[in-house]
């Protein structure tokens, strides 16, 4: 019960901290900033909990007991954090599928023509910003007019190539 309680409490506090920081200023590298906020909150909170449980018997009775429970707390928190970060990536960039669904829904009973959809969803909207993102996140670089993979980009690509080969799947996208 203590692990569940403190896990949710620390996650709630981290979320609140992230929310306040984002209201003041949205960081450039959002995923990295999210990881920093969540991990530093976890470390600070568990340190406070650990120190307080040594000094105050009242805190000791309601705090996690021993290495195993703290370990469980860390795994629990990291699972919640990863799920939130995965979800957050959907907020950072407008998904083409959801953009199409909203555009069709906005037209209501009149419906949306395929040509209108293609005009709305151009290369400038769907592909070029993704290329720029990859350049800014150091996954690819431009050399003599050609885009090439960096080491990070190659590693990232190979994870997905391996997984899709495992499933016998063609290129996605």
């Amino acid at each position: 019960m203590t692990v569940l309680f403190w896990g949710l409490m620390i996650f709630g506090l981290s979320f609140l901290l992230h929310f306040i920081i984002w209201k003041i200023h949205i960081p450039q590298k959002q995923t990295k900033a999210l990881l920093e906020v969540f991990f530093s909150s976890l470390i600070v909170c568990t340190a406070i909990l650990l120190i307080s449980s040594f000094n105050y018997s009242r805190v000791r009775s309601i705090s996690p007991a021993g290495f195993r429970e703290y370990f469980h707390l860390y795994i629990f928190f990291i699972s919640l954090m990863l799920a939130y970060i995965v979800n957050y990536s959907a907020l950072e960039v407008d998904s083409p599928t959801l953009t199409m669904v909203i555009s069709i829904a906005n037209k209501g009973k009149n419906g949306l023509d395929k040509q209108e959809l293609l005009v709305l969803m151009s290369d400038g909207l769907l592909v070029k910003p993704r290329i720029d993102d990859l350049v800014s996140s150091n996954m690819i670089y431009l050399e003599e007019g050609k885009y090439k993979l960096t080491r990070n980009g190659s590693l990232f690509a190979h994870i997905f190539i391996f997984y899709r080969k495992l499933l016998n799947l063609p290129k996605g996208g």
Partner: protein
Amino acid sequence: MISEYLLVLISIVSLLTNVSVQVVVFRCFPRLGLLKSEYFGFCAGLSSLFTISLKEFTAISLLNLIMYFSLSYCYFNFVNLGETARRVRILRELCDSVQGLSLQELLSRYNAKEIVERRIERLLNNGQIIFSNDRFYIGAPLMLWIAKIIMVMKLVILGRRYLDTVYQRNKDRDV
């Protein structure tokens, strides 16, 4: 002692079961489709969680259940990332060409038209949109609900409206 640590790691063990079953089911029955194989994997992982950890329902069981749901959600998104993410596809295209690709070459291999066509096909197959009289209409409202939830979250957390980028880019293009 070992069983105590197993109880801590059970959600990760269940996730591994989920991944293994999903891969085996998809490889053996590719016609089933990726999504259904993910459901199979999820259920297999869940049953392993129930078998080992949920003999009696305690706070630790609830904790492990939440952890399993969170980790499975991450895996579900990892699978879908390989299937739908534009960045992954661009990286794959560049990985296939040692000399690198110019913007034009990249766009000839992967472009907005292909992105839209693929998504229209998926949405039509899932019944999320309907094509009638040369026009698209909303079918089953599941994707629309997901879109609405994300719109609200985006507004609350980032203070931005969904499609702001779309409207802004189209406005810039018109100018």
